[in-house]
């Protein structure tokens, strides 16, 4: 799979559980080594870095984790947690308090929270502290791996708006991983739909959500409950996503696809451009539009 993230832009990645969303995130921040492929930041490859160069790279790409109850050390106060990030940046201890206060203000938390421990904070507050900790090293990209999935809807909206504000002010790029399509539609400029470790559809948020092409994308969008579409026939998916270690032959989606034909069983479809920027990996869709020549995938 391949995708590009521009500065100040948000790329959304969607897919079912087990489709490899979190693996992508972990490979990007190099918590796990990817089995293949490259990650480039600002044009320079950053895969397989070691020692000091890895540490320097890590400051440029930060991550906000899914579980706000596990991503902060329960034995560290908020100011210690953010202070740790500031130390990594090389800021002397004497300037920590002022910076911590500034970062807490940045994520709209009261300064009094600095001395608290995570068990004294709500889920939303914890996630804001995580965001402040990520911001502390001035990253160029923040990966949000289901960062709002564990939050109440009202608080989720607050955190999403906060993330948008921060992007507006600092120009940070987000890689936003979520299974929740309405969250992605709200946040993302571009969207990639993943199925078993591969992108099956890619395009601007507008294109993908208003004109989904791949049967899998259509099924995902149809699965979002809606008040206005009551009674309409839905495209339903049956079965489970396959084991990523042993994907089906041909198009990995063919066993569940209502439109699958013989070719889908044998030939893996490539991700080809069909619209302005929209790309789809599906034989049926591509035949309907006559296959365009193979192009490199860039955003």
């Amino acid at each position: 799979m391949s995708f590009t993230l521009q500065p100040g832009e948000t790329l959304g990645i969607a897919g079912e559980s087990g489709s490899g969303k979190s693996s992508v995130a972990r490979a990007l921040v190099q918590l796990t080594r990817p089995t293949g492929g490259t990650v480039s930041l600002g044009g320079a490859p950053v895969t397989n870095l070691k020692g000091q160069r890895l540490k320097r790279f890590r400051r440029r790409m930060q991550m906000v984790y899914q579980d706000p109850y596990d991503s902060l050390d329960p034995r560290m106060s908020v100011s210690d947690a953010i202070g740790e990030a500031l130390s990594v940046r090389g800021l002397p201890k004497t300037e920590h308090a002022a910076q911590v206060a500034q970062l807490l203000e940045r994520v709209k938390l009261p300064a009094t929270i600095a001395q608290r421990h995570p068990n004294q904070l709500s889920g939303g507050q914890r996630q804001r502290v995580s965001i402040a900790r990520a911001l502390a090293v001035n990253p160029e990209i923040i990966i949000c791996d289901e960062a709002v999935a564990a939050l109440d809807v009202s608080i989720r909206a607050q955190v999403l708006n906060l993330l948008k504000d921060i992007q507006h002010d600092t120009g940070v790029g987000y890689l936003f991983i979520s299974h929740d399509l309405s969250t992605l539609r709200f946040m993302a400029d571009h969207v990639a739909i993943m199925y078993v470790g591969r992108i099956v559809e890619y395009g601007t948020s507008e294109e993908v959500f208003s004109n989904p092409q791949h049967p899998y994308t259509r099924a995902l969008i149809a699965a979002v409950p809606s008040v206005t579409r009551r009674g309409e026939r839905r495209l339903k998916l049956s079965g489970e996503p396959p084991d990523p270690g042993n994907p089906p032959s041909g198009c990995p989606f063919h066993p569940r696809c209502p439109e699958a034909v013989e070719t889908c069983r044998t030939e893996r479809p490539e991700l080809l451009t069909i619209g302005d920027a929209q790309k789809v990996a599906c034989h049926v869709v591509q035949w309907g539009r006559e296959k365009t020549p193979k192009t490199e995938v860039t955003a």
Partner: protein
Amino acid sequence: MINLPENELTVAFSASETTVLSQPNFWRRAGRSLLHDPVALCSFAFILLLTVVAVFAPLIAPYDPLRQFSNGLSFVGAPVAPNGHFLLGTDASGRDVLSRLIFGARVSLLVGVVATGLASLIGVVIGTVAGYVGGVTESILMRFTDMVLSFPILLFCVALIAVTGPSTRNVVLVIAFAYWTYLARVVRGQVLSIKEREFVNAARTLGVGHIKIIRKHIIPHLIPTIIVYGTLGVATSILIEASLSFLGIGVPLPQASWGEMISEGQQYFQSAPWLLVAPGVALILTVLAFNLAGDWLTDLLDPAVQEMGS
């Protein structure tokens, strides 16, 4: 054909996020739990009493533990039974049993605490390194641990003392060398699970160094385990020391130690039972107190490990 709701989310209401989840202070919780657990309370009281007695032994003991009293033996040369002068009687050499018991507490506590401290240090270092580094390092360290663990602990100590020669220092070293394995195994298991938690990943992605991650994010989470195993370890160490002294290879004579007193007392069991009963009861109570205190600490710290603030 397919429509999603408009791509905006409106904040329906601004929920107050500043609710503080009240968590009772740890020490207050510990105190309350102790008050409701008379067994644990007695255990801690006994340990405290023992510590005071051991520390201030020269002030508390009625006599010099090594002094052989001329009136400490009967006309036929037998030990004197407990009386107003010698509260717990005298031993076969005419020495005051109570004074020897009090000075013996010093040896027991010293050996118990120092040996356990040393064992904890070795165990935590080896367990943490094995768990955190993994791979070949882990295999080598843990196979070595298993090897030490597979010896019968007392036999192992006897063999080591036979080589190093009996002295208080050697007793401490030998016990530490036998006991660290238990902690190393438990610590390794804990480190394996802690290092997979998100806050450790978060520290790694920030670029925090390994040493600092271990010091700031891993060791603090091991403290409850170390305290519990330490308490139980003191009991075990005291028992091993007593066993070694009983066998005559522990703390060298004529220094008083409970094990040595029991060993000597058993020869006069029928004529002078107080020689056996006094150190025996002291030993049983001490080991029991440390074990019960350890159990209580396990219960107190176990469910709190995850959420305990400081």
